[in-house]
């Protein structure tokens, strides 16, 4: 470590700290040179000490700053290290410990924005000097600030009632706080409710899911809004106002006992594309499955004979409690919540897109969800594994992995669950039909607890594994023994040869994709999606359930492909984060706000229409504009617009930004 101290007569006493970050920064930036340059060139601005150090964020690094603040009476700190999104808080806290206002510290990124993205050491060193100069010029104009404290409303909104949302809601409700669950479908349960067994333990999905669903339905702290969707979100952490559209069920839940007579009597059969994955039927009045929570059915208007043709009302005639109500209308419900957890899950990749696999064209090519329904004792075949004709039991079954995943034409990512799901299917087929089962895989991915053991078990059961990406599935027989079969054409990369394997049934392990409306959801809640469409967490390793927007959390497969245990863990984790907030009662937020200097305001009203939060109010009597600090979110748009320079903003004032520009260009100024 090198120190450069100097004495000066300046008002501010600035300390500058340049981090090596091991070799992360020092490998590309000559940190000693930068620190020395800062001391000599920026002394005039008040730089009293400029040091470089191996790891500024370590406790020793922080102590270094703290000691300097105390011993040298520093009044401003600039740290050249990683992104403020990573360690701004760390260095602010260090300042606070040394009794310096934390907002008098500036973190300048020379890692993410320099050493990791540039290769030329000289250029990276010069640029580091420039950006640190920018930070020093800027920090001079920092003002001491105190974080704002906003109260946290104790209620939480959970969007999506799959296993992740269910877990989150139960944790919060059990802790004694009110929860609203908004679920788009008539029942909660999500994808898990469609499965027969769950890997790796082969627990029956319904047996472990139903009790949780029932707890949700009967919990005194949970308000369940199914057949509903969020339409508008206003406010911010601590106090969101959410408008929810409750679609008309046409069934009065005060009277309905869930006897299901209406579903029996309804004459209109509809292919159930969602719950039965297109394999089975439901009625126009339906609950998706017998264990649905809530138990009240809904009438699907598009398919109801009464709504389409004006006569029928069979359900109304037979309902023993007169619960059918054709006059119901959609309702808008408004709720206030302090935090929001998004758990809207995934969509299955549409296997039709891989046309060479023949799904939709070749009858006996099934998707994974179809197979879940087929093998489910409560499914359309009562659990009989049969071909599309409904009777023939397959003698050979091919399970194709990675359909739409790890494929440059579709999704680059691995869908995580498909290998295990393929193994689960292999086991079920083997156990129930005795058929010969082939798994076609690129790589077997069976990480996590008890997964590889399950793989070993399926291997021992005699399932055959062919390593290679399936090229084509066809019914065009060429060789003896292929007639009437589906032929799987694959390059067996272990044997190093092309193979044609005739089978009776193919199951496509389709990948998981973001919900088709994931982008709209992200927009509605003011968060971001990755390029793929998965919602982005605040930090990929250290903050997987928070988002960049305070008060909005994510859990389960909405964040990326996940199995059930991880979805449950995330649901619980998101709930824990929310609980922490609720129990604190308030949250500290960045004091970044705009305010108007009444003396300077000319009353031109140019700024008046610019605020999306209606924080800007004009006082006719005094002919001046004022900003309501409780509503201002600190975007700074009005500040930039005011021709009189009457609006100023904390943290990002004109003086700070203009000074930073000067600093950044110091090296280039002639």
């Amino acid at each position, binding site marked *: 470590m090198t120190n450069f101290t100097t004495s000066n007569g300046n008002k501010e006493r600035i300390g500058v700290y340049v981090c090596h970050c091991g070799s992360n920064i020092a490998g590309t930036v000559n940190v000693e040179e930068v620190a020395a340059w800062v001391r000599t060139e920026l002394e005039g601005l008040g730089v009293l000490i400029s040091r470089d150090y191996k790891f500024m964020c370590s406790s020793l690094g922080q102590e270094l700053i703290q000691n300097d603040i105390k011993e040298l009476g520093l009044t401003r700190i600039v740290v050249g290290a990683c992104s403020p999104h990573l360690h701004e808080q760390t260095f602010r806290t260090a300042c606070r410990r040394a009794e310096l206002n934390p907002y008098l510290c500036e973190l300048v*990124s020379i890692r993410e924005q320099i050493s990791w993205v540039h290769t030329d050491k000289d250029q990276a060193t010069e*640029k580091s000097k420039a950006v640190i100069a920018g930070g020093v010029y800027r920090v001079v104009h920092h003002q001491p600030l105190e974080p704002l404290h906003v109260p946290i409303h104790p209620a939480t909104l959970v969007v999506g009632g799959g296993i992740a949302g269910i877990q989150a809601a139960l944790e919060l409700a059990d802790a004694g706080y009110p929860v609203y669950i908004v679920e788009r479908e008539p029942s909660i349960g999500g994808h898990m409710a469609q499965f027969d067994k769950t890997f790796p333990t082969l627990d029956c999905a319904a047996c472990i899911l139903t009790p949780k669903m029932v707890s949700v339905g009967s919990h005194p702290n949970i308000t369940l809004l199914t057949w509903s969707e969020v339409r508008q979100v206003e406010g911010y952490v601590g106090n969101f106002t959410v408008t929810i559209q409750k679609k008309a069920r046409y069934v009065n839940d005060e009277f309905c006992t869930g006897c299901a007579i209406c579903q029996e009597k309804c004459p209109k059969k509809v292919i159930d594309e969602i719950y039965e994955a297109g394999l089975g039927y439901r009625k126009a009045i339906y609950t998706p499955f017998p264990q649905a929570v809530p138990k009240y059915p809904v009438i699907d208007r598009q398919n109801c004979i009464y709504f389409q043709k004006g006569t029928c009302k069979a359900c109304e005639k037979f309902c023993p409690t007169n619960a059918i109500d054709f006059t119901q209308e959609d309702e808008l419900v408004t709720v206030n919540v302090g935090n929001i957890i998004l758990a809207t899950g995934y969509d299955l990749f549409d296997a039709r897109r891989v046309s060479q696999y023949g799904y939709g064209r070749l009858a006996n090519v099934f998707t994974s969800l179809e197979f879940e329904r087929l093998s489910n004792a409560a499914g359309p075949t009562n659990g009989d594994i049969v071909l599309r004709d409904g009777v023939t039991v397959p003698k050979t079954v091919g399970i194709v992995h990675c359909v739409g995943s790890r494929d440059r034409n579709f999704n680059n990512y691995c869908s995580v669950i498909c290998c295990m799901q393929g193994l689960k299917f292999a086991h079920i087929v083997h156990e129930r039909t005795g058929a010969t089962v082939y798994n076609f895989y690129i790589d077997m991915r069976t990480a996590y607890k008890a997964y590889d053991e399950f793989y070993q078990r399926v291997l021992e059961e005699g399932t055959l594994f062919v390593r290679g990406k399936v090229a084509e599935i066809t019914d065009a027989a060429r060789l003896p023994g292929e007639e009437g079969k589906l032929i799987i054409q694959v390059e067996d990369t272990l044997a190093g040869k092309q193979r044609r394997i005739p089978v009776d049934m193919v199951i496509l392990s389709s990948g998981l994709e973001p919900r088709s409306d994931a982008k709209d959801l992200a927009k509605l809640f003011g968060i*971001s*999606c990755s*390029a793929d469409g998965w919602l982005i967490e605040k930090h990929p390793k250290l903050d997987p359930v928070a988002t960049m927007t305070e008060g909005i959390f994510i859990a389960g497969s909405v964040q990326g492909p996940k199995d059930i245990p991880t979805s449950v863990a995330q649901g619980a984790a998101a709930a824990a984060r929310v609980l922490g907030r609720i129990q604190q009662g308030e949250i500290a937020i960045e004091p970044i706000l705009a305010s108007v200097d009444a003396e300077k305001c000319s009353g031109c009203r140019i700024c008046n229409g610019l605020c999306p939060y209606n924080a800007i109010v004009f006082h006719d009597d005094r002919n001046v504009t004022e900003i309501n600090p409780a509503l201002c979110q600190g975007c700074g748009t009005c500040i930039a617009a005011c021709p009189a320079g009457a609006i100023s903003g904390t943290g*990002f004032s004109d003086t700070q930004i203009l000074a*930073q520009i000067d600093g950044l*260009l110091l090296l280039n100024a002639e």
Partner: protein
Amino acid sequence: MSDAFEPIIIGFTCNWCSYRAADLAGTARVKYPANIRLIRLMCSGRIDPTFVLKAFASGADGVLITGCHPGECHYIEQNYKALRRYLLLKRSLTQLGIEAGRVKLVWASAAEGVRLADEITKMVEQVKTLGPLNWPKWEGFFDDEIHSLVEIPEEVSA
């Protein structure tokens, strides 16, 4: 102008999207030229055209303005206001004799590290071909301006 001209570009970024995209480019070790120097603001709506003029006046050769994609602004719609200002600014800059290619607006979401790096690379190339910023020769510029102003009434009257 020599081959070795290395322009300096000031990049205004938004805390929620493009600054995070820059972070992501870093984490992913995507490479781009060192000619850019970023300033973090809370939103593209904060960008006062004065900042851009100041950057040029203080020696920048180009300015890159970045923000969230339309409809994705953390503050709902402030990037539309940034867009409006950008269009006006671009016109004023050309009137001042600063080539339009020296300022550019780019939308980059928090996930678009690679895209941001690409845009930076393109911008640096573009400004390299424009060469160093030479403020226009004011005298001649104003002569033309005054001349045209004087001429208008004649045209109108003609």
